[in-house]
């Protein structure tokens, strides 16, 4: 009886064997392959890569299978692998202006250089369950354009010509380095670079809810989608021995530039301000939520009142990481006998004292 409470090695081994069995499921059905996950559950792979902070479709797909489809568990697996990788340097900033665009929409301009491109979107689909998919439907090849796509400058760059929107703040000085939250512990207050890093790997659901809260009046920021673009960009790396940048390959990213009204303050004239979102893979929901949160979190910088949860940097950044959150919430199922014993003692003592006093 007493020992059974304490668990043991055999119990752990058996539990893991059962888990592996449940993961595999009915052996008469074919096992999932990594290729199937990459090709047919691509958006799940994208989320595991984005919040796992590791661009590797195969490993993300493996993690999804291993996690039985639990995406936060898959993200955790990816992170725990990523953290062991040596860092040999930092790439050049990617240039989303030179993206090979698959989707690009702007809500602020009807037409613009480069055009609007719908791409593979759920928008305007009717959400009716389609039984043909279950029966293994034959999907015809999609139409493709045969013209070379014209140059599609970023909407914010177009607005910047008129000075209507705050400028991007490029790293002009050599001493301006971008922080790295995976190498340096976060110290509040944060600069925007670190905030954006944290947001980029933050939980989609958490950021969605916070972004939503800004639309419902908790730090309203009058946002417009200046532009969302999805496509592949080249990652370039400066090799010191060579003296020039080499391409490491292409990654698919989703970028959202939110344009927000700003009445101006003592420090800044009236102009449009920006909220920025950038996510691995295809995830508009995450990129849009991220840009709403980014804008809300700039309250201090822009001299706005800080009154809502989405503007509270310590609150948002401390709680957006789902690997941290799930670990700490779920650690409550670990034994706490020792502390509970101390509390039992205390409650008994206090009850006895109260009873004594009553008598």
């Amino acid at each position, binding site marked *: 009886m007493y020992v059974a409470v304490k668990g043991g090695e055999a119990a752990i081994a058996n539990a893991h064997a059962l888990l592996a069995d449940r993961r595999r499921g009915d052996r008469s059905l074919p096992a999932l392959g990594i290729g199937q996950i990459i090709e047919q559950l691509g958006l799940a792979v994208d989320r595991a890569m984005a919040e796992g902070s590791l661009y590797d479709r195969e490993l993300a797909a493996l993690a999804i299978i291993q996690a039985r489809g639990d995406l936060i568990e898959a993200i955790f697996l990816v992170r725990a692998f990523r953290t062991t990788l040596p860092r040999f340097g930092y790439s050049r900033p990617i240039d989303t202006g030179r993206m090979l665009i698959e989707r690009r929409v702007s809500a602020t301009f009807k037409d613009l250089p480069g055009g609007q491109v719908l791409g593979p979107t759920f928008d305007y689909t009717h959400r009716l369950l389609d039984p043909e998919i279950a029966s293994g439907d034959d999907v015809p090849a999609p139409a493709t354009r045969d013209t070379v796509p014209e140059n599609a400058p970023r909407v914010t760059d177009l607005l910047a010509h008129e000075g209507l929107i705050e400028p991007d703040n490029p790293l002009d000085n050599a001493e301006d380095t971008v922080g790295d939250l995976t190498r340096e512990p*976060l110290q509040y207050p944060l600069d925007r670079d670190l905030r954006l890093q944290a947001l980029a790997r933050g939980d989609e659901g958490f950021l969605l809810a916070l972004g939503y809260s800004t639309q419902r009046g908790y730090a309203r920021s009058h946002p417009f989608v200046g532009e969302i673009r999805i496509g592949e960009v080249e990652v370039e790396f400066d090799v010191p021995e060579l003296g020039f940048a080499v391409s490491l390959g292409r990654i698919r990213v989703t970028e959202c530039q939110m344009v927000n009204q700003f009445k101006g303050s003592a420090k800044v004239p009236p102009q449009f301000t920006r909220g920025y979102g950038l996510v691995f893979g295809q995830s508009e929901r995450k990129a849009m939520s991220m840009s709403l949160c980014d804008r809300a979190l700039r309250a201090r910088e822009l001299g706005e009142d800080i009154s809502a949860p989405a503007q509270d940097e310590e609150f948002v950044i401390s709680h957006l990481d789902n690997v941290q959150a799930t670990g700490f919430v779920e650690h409550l199922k670990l034994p706490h006998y020792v502390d509970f014993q101390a509390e039992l003692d205390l409650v008994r003592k206090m009850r006895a004292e109260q009873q004594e006093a009553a008598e």
Partner: protein
Amino acid sequence: MSAAPSYNFAYLDEQTKRMIRRAILKAIAIPGYQVPFASREMPMPYGWGTGGVQVTAAIIGANDVLKVIDQGADDTTNAVSIRAFFAKVARVQTTTHTHAASIIQTRHRIPEKPLHAGQVLVYQVPIPEPLRFLEPRETETRKMHALEEYGLMHVKLYEDIARHGHIATTFAYPVKIEGRYVMDPSPTPKFDNPKMHMSPALQLFGAGREMRIYALPPFTEVVSLDFEDHPFEIQHFDQPCALCAATGVYLDEVILDDQGGHMFVCSDTDNCEERRAQGHRGALAGHRLEAGR
């Protein structure tokens, strides 16, 4: 598939270990001060000992002998899991004997047997900030530590006395280190606080999710906060361990049936087993303890 994943000795890469060692050295130099460090994701969840595991991974060598306890016990599932982790990734010898271990990683307890010089006790810490539940903001609590402004903590303890007649904190009971920093001893019962004082062992505290490391070098003064008229006192149990008859040790209450029957047994399983091997017998000893394992 990308290259098959392979892992370094003790899981972490060497640069990361160096970074953690630097944080540990700083922590030892400023006892009780929380040193921020760039905590890594570990292959176990946050809140399950990632801070302690990183500290252990940074200091463990091939010749170390590791003991891992959770709630005082070596056979608690999470302790088993962490011990197996290091046996696998560092191939070190493990033990359940307190005196035989060079590194002891613990969650929520300090072993009953006094530690000796040369041993390292690594604590897993969930919330390293003793002031966190009084002030949720890191920017504020950092300032309070810098200014040695601990009035809020004393007010909290005073309010306990005013309301209950005694201090109603039973674990994670705040301590003051060398008259300077107020420190969270991790959620050990206050019963264990006196063991931290002037311990010949090195005590390291790792909080992974909160990215903090702090330390008590050997022979550091550790004083539990109290008032002159309400001195600090530890828990006392009315009965000895039902298995080994030990007194003056921390006991777990084990429920025996649904009629309110219960027994008290040692939380420190190694100490209890050793005493029974020496022939000590408690009131309920004689059960086949291996049953149910």
